[in-house]
């Protein structure tokens, strides 16, 4: 029988990591996600699964600890919030360049700078357009519930090891802090050293006489070699765009208009759709689950049936740029956002939507 527990989104990350065979967590406290490490320290998984948990001296160190752990073929995780992610961007670029898998959780707060500890979605650009230097992308998963916080840890590791790349879970303060019923999925044990040696031939497991040395580096001074490395990365991103786009549609089949929203705003906009439907307006909701790769093709598929699209975000308008790229000028693309940690109500979104379509 399925087991359900009431927990915060942040706690779900911690419990899921332990139950999904995560080998190591490295992090630095920051609101609104400190419960992740706090929960791990209370649970003491090193006594049960053998999972390592360490409070690092900074986010710079956390992400580089992930580089070390990932190099050994281990499932390694960190979590932070916006300012911490800025410090991690250097490391993320190196991890992407060295083709190393890991899962990084960003429970986004309002920025820029120290900003606010209230929820935000202003890190979309940083997450989806690189953040660190160079031509790299990460898979970016956007959970909208405590259950998805739980499930995306496992999904994140699957994708990280499928593509040998960092995967980001881009949550927000609401999803991290809200308490919900979470189903505990079956436990996955940690990989044994033998499994790691067999499955990840690239890992630094110790050079044995039967193989060449393994070197995990992002450095390639020869221009031709470096261009090849970049092409290899780009071909992985193409593959992500064809194989791993995830989204959810709500009342979109007959829709004249759709809202595009992710994370906590998608939860709120479900109610906006109902408000519109009650007044006979055919509004639907498209919720990107992967922000990168973005559901561009799904939006393009829907454009002929639509009169308008509105992107709703806790930002000054970031995801809306990807919606516009997909729509390519064929229909109006509107935007509604709140800043500073203010989360709009379904009614507020509905009023904004009506104002746009009645212009």
């Amino acid at each position, binding site marked *: 029988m399925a087991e359900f527990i009431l927990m915060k989104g942040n706690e779900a990350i911690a419990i899921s990591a332990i139950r999904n065979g995560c*080998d*190591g967590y*490295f992090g630095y406290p920051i609101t609104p996600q400190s419960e992740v490490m706090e929960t791990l320290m209370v649970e003491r998984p090193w006594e049960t699964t053998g999972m*390592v948990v*360490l409070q*690092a*001296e*900074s986010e*710079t*160190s*956390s992400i*580089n*600890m*992930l*580089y*070390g*752990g990932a*190099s*050994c073929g*281990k499932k*390694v995780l960190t979590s932070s919030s916006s300012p911490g992610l800025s410090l991690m961007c*250097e*490391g993320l670029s*190196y991890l992407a360049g*060295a083709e190393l898998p890991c899962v990084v959780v960003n429970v986004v707060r309002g920025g820029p700078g120290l900003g606010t500890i209230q929820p935000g979605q202003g890190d979309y650009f940083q997450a989806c357009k690189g953040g660190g230097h160079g031509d790299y992308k990460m898979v970016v998963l956007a959970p909208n519930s405590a259950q998805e916080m739980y499930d995306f840890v496992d999904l994140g590791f699957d994708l990280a090891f499928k593509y040998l790349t960092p995967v980001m879970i881009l949550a927000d303060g609401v999803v991290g802090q809200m308490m919900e019923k979470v189903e505990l999925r079956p436990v996955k044990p940690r990989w044994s050293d033998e499994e790691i040696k067999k499955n990840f031939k690239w890992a*630094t*497991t*110790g*050079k*044995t*006489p039967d193989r060449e*040395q*393994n*070197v*995990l*580096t*992002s*450095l390639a001074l020869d221009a031709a070699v470096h261009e090849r490395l970049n092409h290899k990365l780009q071909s992985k991103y193409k593959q992500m765009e064809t194989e791993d786009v995830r989204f959810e549609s709500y009342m979109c089949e007959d829709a004249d208009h759709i809202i595009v929203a992710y994370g906590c705003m998608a939860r709120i906009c479900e109610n906006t759709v109902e408000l519109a439907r009650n007044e006979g307006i055919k509004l639907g909701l498209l919720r990107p689950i992967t922000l990168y790769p973005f559901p561009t093709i799904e939006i393009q598929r829907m454009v002929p049936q639509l009169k308008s699209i509105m992107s709703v975000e806790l930002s000054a308008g970031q995801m809306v740029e990807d919606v516009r790229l997909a729509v390519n000028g064929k229909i109006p693309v509107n935007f509604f956002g709140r800043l500073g940690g203010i989360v709009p109500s379904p009614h507020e979104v509905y009023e904004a939507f009506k104002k746009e379509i009645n212009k």
Partner: protein
Amino acid sequence: MELKDIIKPENKVYSKSPVLTNKVMHYCPGCSHGTVHKLIAEVIEEMGIQEKTIGISPVGCSVFAYNYIDIDWQQAAHGRAPALATATKRLCPDKYVFTYQGDGDLASIGTAEIIHACNRGENIVVIFINNAIYGMTGGQMAPTTLMGMKTSTSPYGRTEELHGKPLKITELIAQLEGTCYVTRQSVQSAAASRKTKRAIRKAFENSALNKGTSFVEVVSACNSGWKLTPVKSNEWMVENMFPSYPIGDLKDR
């Protein structure tokens, strides 16, 4: 006597460690990096731990250390090697894990990482190449650059008003509870190299005993950065570096 009469197994006095690869080193002739690489390779060979050793290379001239020592390597971002080593050792406690870092890498951009790894007493080995300059980027001032020393970013010599005094990071590291062995060595002569090799060996042995962090500074020559010949560099080092960075153990417990 002909050459073939001399080249016989019984006449052999030296052979290159098989843990060193056959690649031609990119280091400038006279550079200390190559000598220290050789010593590390010999220690790994003599201890029989090639299959169990993981090196973390820095950003600096020795970024390519992995080309020369035939073990598994992780190449870290500038200054971050101790963070990689921390996770590697904690996740793979049966491994010998060492970082190899220059003075810019360890004592400037990576100060937080090295202090905290040493303070936690990670069971790792740190090899610290102090040549008092940024070799790789063309000879800029390092935190360890001597007073009055001319570099491309201190062209009139290092002054206290502008740059502060040289950072004695090894003395600082020796204060930390987490370190078990902190020593300063050099490789300008065969005798000095032999001592350094013994220090490196002891450091690796410590890490199997879970005694804490072992830290081996090697006062080194960067003849290109110092703009001196290899021979003059060694003389200059003994004369000028050793008074500020005296050779010997700072801690051994």
